[in-house]
């Protein structure tokens, strides 16, 4: 027997493929909850996301895709790698934003949430996601010998559908806000709905 092939005749280990898929579904729901809070702040709180905040959301969606692949095709190291790469890509932007605002006198963007601004929370969550994926990768028994396509139902279907809707919703929202181009540095409205804002009067 190949020493690298998990032996299904003996103890399945601490983290079985089924338990791993359950944890991935719960993680996917948690990522969806983060994106829903961002949407709530945008549409109910009236705070438009800044360009770096949009990239942060895209990073969370990418993490969700990595976890969703684990649900559909079973846990694979490559799926965790996608989640970690997305978290790193999103975290790069957030680290930049935190560093920009950490300078005294530069102010902040948006209202704080539980004592920290959204971009600080996002950076913390991205670090937690990378660490969490690394911890999950420690459990070799969750990996099935060959990829297989799982049917989605119950919690997995809910989580998969939620992240797909949020990916599409964020894409449409960004099109409305940025009119299909680069978003303005200081967004004041939905460019596609309201048109270009009037130019500020020239300063004497």
């Amino acid at each position, binding site marked *: 027997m190949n020493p690298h092939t998990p032996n299904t005749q003996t103890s399945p280990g601490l983290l079985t493929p089924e338990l791993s898929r359950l944890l991935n579904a719960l993680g996917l729901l948690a990522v969806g909850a983060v994106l829903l809070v961002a949407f709530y702040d945008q549409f109910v709180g009236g705070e438009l996301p800044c360009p770096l905040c949009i990239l942060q959301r895209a990073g969370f969606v990418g993490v969700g895709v990595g976890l969703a692949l684990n649900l559909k095709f079973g846990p694979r190291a490559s799926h965790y790698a996608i989640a970690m790469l997305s978290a790193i890509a999103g975290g790069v932007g957030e680290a930049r934003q935190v560093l920009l605002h950490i300078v005294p006198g530069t102010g902040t963007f948006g209202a704080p949430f539980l004592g920290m601004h959204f971009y600080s929370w996002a950076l913390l969550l991205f670090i937690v996601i990378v660490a969490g994926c690394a911890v999950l990768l420690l459990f070799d028994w969750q990996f099935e010998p060959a990829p297989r396509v799982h049917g989605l139902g119950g919690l997995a279907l809910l989580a998969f559908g939620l992240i797909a809707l949020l990916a599409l919703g964020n894409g449409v929202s960004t099109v409305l806000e940025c009119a299909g181009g680069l*978003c303005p540095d200081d967004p004041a409205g939905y460019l596609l709905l309201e048109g270009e804002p009037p130019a500020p009067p020239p300063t004497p």
Partner: protein
Amino acid sequence: MPASRSVQRRDESPFFGFFVSLAFAAAGRRCFAVAACLVSIGLLLKLFKPHATSSLDIVL
């Protein structure tokens, strides 16, 4: 920035890329799903460059 360059870069592109990846996953096409996801991550990193200093222009 020239208008032609701003047209090429669209902030919404990573979201639609990830959505396409999920659509491939739902269809059972793992390789295409992984490829679309990696392209989206690349787009995300590419979009970071024009926005790296955007917070400095925010009116606070």
